[in-house]
C-alpha cells in the first residue's frame, strides 16, 4: 500500500533575519489515522527541520499551550486531526491578533496581564477561621459557575475575536469568563474588586457579541455568554442596588 503523505505549510519568522513571516512547505508521511497537526509539527522538527519553533505540552487538549491557526481557524493543534484535512494541505500559522516572537510562537504577555487583572482567585472580605471548617457548596452552587471554570487559557478565543484584533486594549473573552467564574462562586466576595476592570469601557462594553470566541473554544466555556450575562448583571446591579443579587 503506498504511503500517504500530506503537505504542511508552516509560518517561519526569524526576527534576526526576516522582515516579515513567510510560509514554508514540508511534505511528511501521514502514517497513522490518529495523527494530529501537533504530531506533524513534531515530525518536522525531529526529522526535517529542527529550527521550527512552537509551543506544546500535554498533547491532550488540557494544557492550552498548542493553540495555532490551522487553515485559518484557531485550533489546539493536538486536537486537529490530519484526516479531517487530507489530502488538502494544512497551513499552520501563529494565533491571530497576537505579536509573533518567532515562527509559530506568539507573545502572550498581554493576555497574562489581563488574566491577572481580573483577580482569578477566591477573594474574601474576611477569611473564615480554620476551625469553622470548609466553605460548603452544593452541586447546584458549583453548576452556577462550572462551565466558566473549564477555561484552559489557550487563547483561541482571543485569536477569534475581531474586537480584540482591532483593539488590543479589550479585556477579551477568557479573562471576562474567568472573572465571572469567580463572581458566581458562592465562596467569593470579590465582585466589587473586579468591577473596575470588568465594567471598564475596555471591558465588557467593548464586546459586540460576534460570538466567534464561543465557536472556537475547545472546552465549551462559552465566553460570549459570560460577557453578555456580565453586561446584564452589571446593569441590573446598578439599576436595583439592593435587589437582584444574581
Amino acid at each position: 500500500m503506498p504511503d500517504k503523505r500530506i503537505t504542511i505549510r508552516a509560518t517561519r519568522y526569524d526576527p534576526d533575519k526576516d522582515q516579515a513571516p513567510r510560509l514554508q512547505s514540508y511534505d511528511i508521511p501521514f502514517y497513522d489515522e490518529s495523527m494530529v497537526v501537533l504530531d506533524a509539527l513534531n515530525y518536522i522538527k525531529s526529522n526535517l527541520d529542527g529550527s521550527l519553533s512552537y509551543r506544546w505540552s500535554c498533547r491532550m487538549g488540557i494544557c492550552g499551550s498548542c493553540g495555532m491557526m490551522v487553515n485559518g481557524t484557531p485550533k489546539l493543534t493536538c486536537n486537529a486531526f490530519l484526516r479531517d484535512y487530507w489530502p488538502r494541505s494544512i497551513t499552520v500559522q501563529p494565533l491571530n491578533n497576537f505579536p509573533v516572537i518567532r515562527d509559530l510562537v506568539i507573545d502572550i504577555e498581554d493576555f497574562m496581564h489581563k488574566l491577572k487583572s481580573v483577580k482569578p482567585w477566591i477573594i474574601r472580605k474576611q477569611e473564615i477561621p480554620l476551625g469553622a471548617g470548609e466553605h460548603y457548596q452544593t452541586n447546584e452552587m458549583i453548576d452556577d459557575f462550572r462551565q466558566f471554570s473549564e477555561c484552559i487559557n489557550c487563547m483561541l478565543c482571543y485569536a477569534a475575536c475581531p474586537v480584540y484584533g482591532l483593539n488590543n486594549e479589550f479585556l477579551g473573552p477568557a479573562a471576562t469568563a474567568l472573572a465571572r467564574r469567580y463572581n458566581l462562586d458562592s465562596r467569593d466576595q470579590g465582585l466589587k474588586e473586579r468591577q473596575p476592570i470588568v465594567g471598564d469601557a475596555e471591558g465588557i462594553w467593548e464586546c459586540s457579541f460576534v460570538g466567534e470566541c464561543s465557536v472556537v473554544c475547545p472546552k465549551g466555556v462559552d465566553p460570549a455568554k459570560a460577557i453578555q450575562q456580565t453586561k446584564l448583571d452589571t446593569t441590573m446591579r446598578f439599576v436595583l442596588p439592593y435587589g437582584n443579587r444574581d
Partner: protein
Amino acid sequence: MSEKVSSRPALAHLFWWFMFAQGGVIAAVLLPIHILFQGILEPLGFINVATPADVSLLANPIVKLYLLVLIAVPFFHFAHRLRYLIVDFGVHAAKGVPAQVVFYGGALAVTLLTIYLLLTTAPITF
C-alpha cells in the same frame, strides 16, 4: 493597561448598552409586522389597515405614545450598533466621545423630532 481608580462600571457605556437592549426588543418584536402591513400589503392594496393617513387615529394620545416608543427607542439600538459597526471597519475614532455625541445625539434628535411631529401633526384636542 493603566490602573483604574473608580470602583463603578463605565456608566455611560452601561446606559447606552441598556438603551441598545431596550431598543432591540422593541425593534425585534414590533417592526416586522409594521413593515409587512403598513409598508408592503397596505400600499400594494392587499389589505386595509390603519395608516398615517388616519388623522383621527393620529390625534389619539395613546397612539402617539405608541408611535413614540416604536420610532424613537429603536434609534438608540441602531445608533449603538452602527457606531460599533464603524469601529469594526477600523475607524478607531468612532470609539471617542465626539462619535458618541454624533450617534447617541442623533438618536436623541430623532426622539425630539418624533415628539415634535407627533404633537404638531393631528394635535390632541381636549
